């Protein structure tokens, strides 16, 4: 179980940004700071898949980066199985598997070497690494290209390798930031099957996306962020209810408009 409560994060504005600032465009900007995340809360229980939605620049990536411990929140808490990972980031890193659409691999290393490297950094033993790699290579049908250098792989192969890299240490929670962006249908299917597999294993999955068909296919819960503030957190049915529509796209638009008007 992962619980996110009252997250806030601001970034200092650069001189260039201040110089080119257009007044009253974004309510999140003050004189010196851009308040990227102002108040975000949601939770995701064991075996649940939570879809994190929001328009571009809503603060989704910042939120996911805070959950993955890459960024430190200014306020708020993130707990995994009762442990506050804001206070204990190293513990959080052991518990989380993170993947984004822009995650890369070390091109001059083979796929196997890439995955083994991250497994070693997670403190896994040699024998454990060997068995886990074999398990993942079979699961993701990767055996044919594990000894190829990452720089020579197709986009689909790279994303499979990235998935394996993200979960090699058997994380308690998996965080995915727009994992299907820019992928073809076949590779998108691989990612979807992978998320379904995690769900079946009981691993909580948080993933941000702009594709609401993926939400319909995978998610148990939905959280919506707009301008750095949580504006919805509930089940998919509650989401449709709150948005006054059975169509997810329409419901999403209605929720955003309603909250914005308020």
């Amino acid at each position, binding site marked *: 179980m992962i619980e996110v409560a009252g997250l806030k994060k601001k970034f200092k504005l650069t001189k260039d940004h201040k110089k080119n600032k257009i007044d009253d465009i974004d309510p999140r900007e003050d004189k010196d700071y851009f308040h990227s995340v102002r108040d975000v809360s949601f939770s995701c229980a064991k075996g649940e898949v939570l879809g994190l939605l929001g328009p571009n620049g809503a603060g989704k990536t910042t939120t996911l980066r805070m959950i993955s411990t*890459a960024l430190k929140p200014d306020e708020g808490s993130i707990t995994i199985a009762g442990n506050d990972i804001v206070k204990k980031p*190293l513990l959080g890193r*052991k518990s989380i598997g993170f993947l984004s659409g822009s995650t890369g691999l070390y091109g001059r290393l083979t796929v196997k070497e890439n995955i083994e490297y991250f497994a070693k950094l997670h403190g896994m033993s040699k024998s454990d690494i060997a068995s886990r790699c074999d398990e993942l290579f079979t699961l993701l049908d990767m055996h044919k290209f594990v000894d190829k250098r990452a720089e020579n792989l197709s986009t689909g192969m790279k994303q499979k390798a990235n998935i394996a890299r993200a979960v090699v240490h058997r994380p308690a929670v998996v965080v995915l930031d727009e994992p299907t962006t820019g992928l073809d249908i076949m590779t998108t299917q691989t990612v979807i099957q992978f998320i379904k597999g995690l769900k079946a294993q009981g691993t909580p999955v948080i993933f941000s996306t702009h594709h609401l068909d993926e939400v319909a296919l995978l998610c148990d819960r939905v959280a919506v962020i707009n301008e750095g503030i949580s504006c919805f957190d509930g089940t998919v049915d509650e989401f449709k209810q709150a948005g006054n529509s059975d169509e997810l796209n329409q419901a999403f638009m209605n929720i955003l408009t309603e909250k914005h008007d308020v």
Partner: protein
Amino acid sequence: MFEVFKKELRELLRDKKTLLFVVALPVAIFPLLFAVMAFISSQAAMDAEQKVNTYAIINGEYAQEFTDKVFYHKSFELYKGAKTFNNIEELKAGVIAGDIDMGIYLPSHAEQTLDNGEQSQWQVVFNDSKSINFLFERVKELAKEYSDVLQTQKLISFGIEESVQKSILNPIEVIKVDTADKRENLGEKIGGFLPYLLIPLVLMGATYPAIDLGAGEKERGTLETLLLTPITRTELVLGKFITLLTTSIASTTITVLSMGCWIALALAFADLDFIKAAFSTLAVTDLLMIFVLLLPVAAIFSALALAISIYARTFKEAQNYMAPLSMGVFFPIIISIMPNMELTAKTAFIPVTNVALAIKEIVKGTVDYTFVGLIFLATAIIAAGLLAFCVKWFNREDVLFR
């Protein structure tokens, strides 16, 4: 930390560009370039020596003995063309037009001028920008020989015997008594040159891989995943830092060994006394001491390059930041060869300059070991400070996620 180091090293060894900069350049390309440069310059000097230059002389009969010497000199050939030269302006025009390489103008009869108690001023016309100023030197030499003959004859006519002329013309002669031994003299020359070769190599060995280890991680999109592993930022920085230290030292060591091999090879085929004398003075302990002094310098450069690289958003941005660093390294080395710059308790604390000065002193055989210790300590403290800064830099979100 060692996992990071092992992985970085493995990846760098598979990078053709890194291998080119760290291994191929020092092993083959640098010595090859030096050899080509030496060959071209010696060939150019030989060509210049062997070239016969056309000249014209006006009033040659005013100093027949000198005129004959020029005529029979192997480097000069009298102009036999249709043009005539009657004054200095015509000589200038002849040189500009390329009819002659040099013109000599004698304004008066040399012996008569001397009899009148006056100095005869001869003019040599040539193009000084054509790297043929040795023409002027040769004519000056021949004129001096003739001038000396005139001087001797005149003094004899005054009744001053040739044997006493020397003491009259030069009553006092200052003779240099040099206490510097052969090694000191050679060391002064080579010792000043060595830091120019070694210190930039130490820097080059660190900067190129650093770009890959910092900005490269950002550009590939691997930095974020690396930051999410349960290793501390200190371990991460140390892993990358040790990689750069290794490549930096490896690059320098390979260069020195390669140059040693090439010099040994050159000595085996040619009798190069100067080089033999210069390098026979260096003991293994001297080389070891130079190596030890370069270690903290490599640490300074590695930490600086890593800090710069992780700040940059892209490979290109990192390359732009590295360029001033590469140029900046030469300033402290230039300071070390400035007149009166010596290794003292004060200069031992100037980074890079101190090591350059110490290398010179080591090669000369006059190094004070207290200063070597002091330099090592001072440089190591600066390196440690920069490394601590690097760790702090790696903890800043505004640096990592610019």
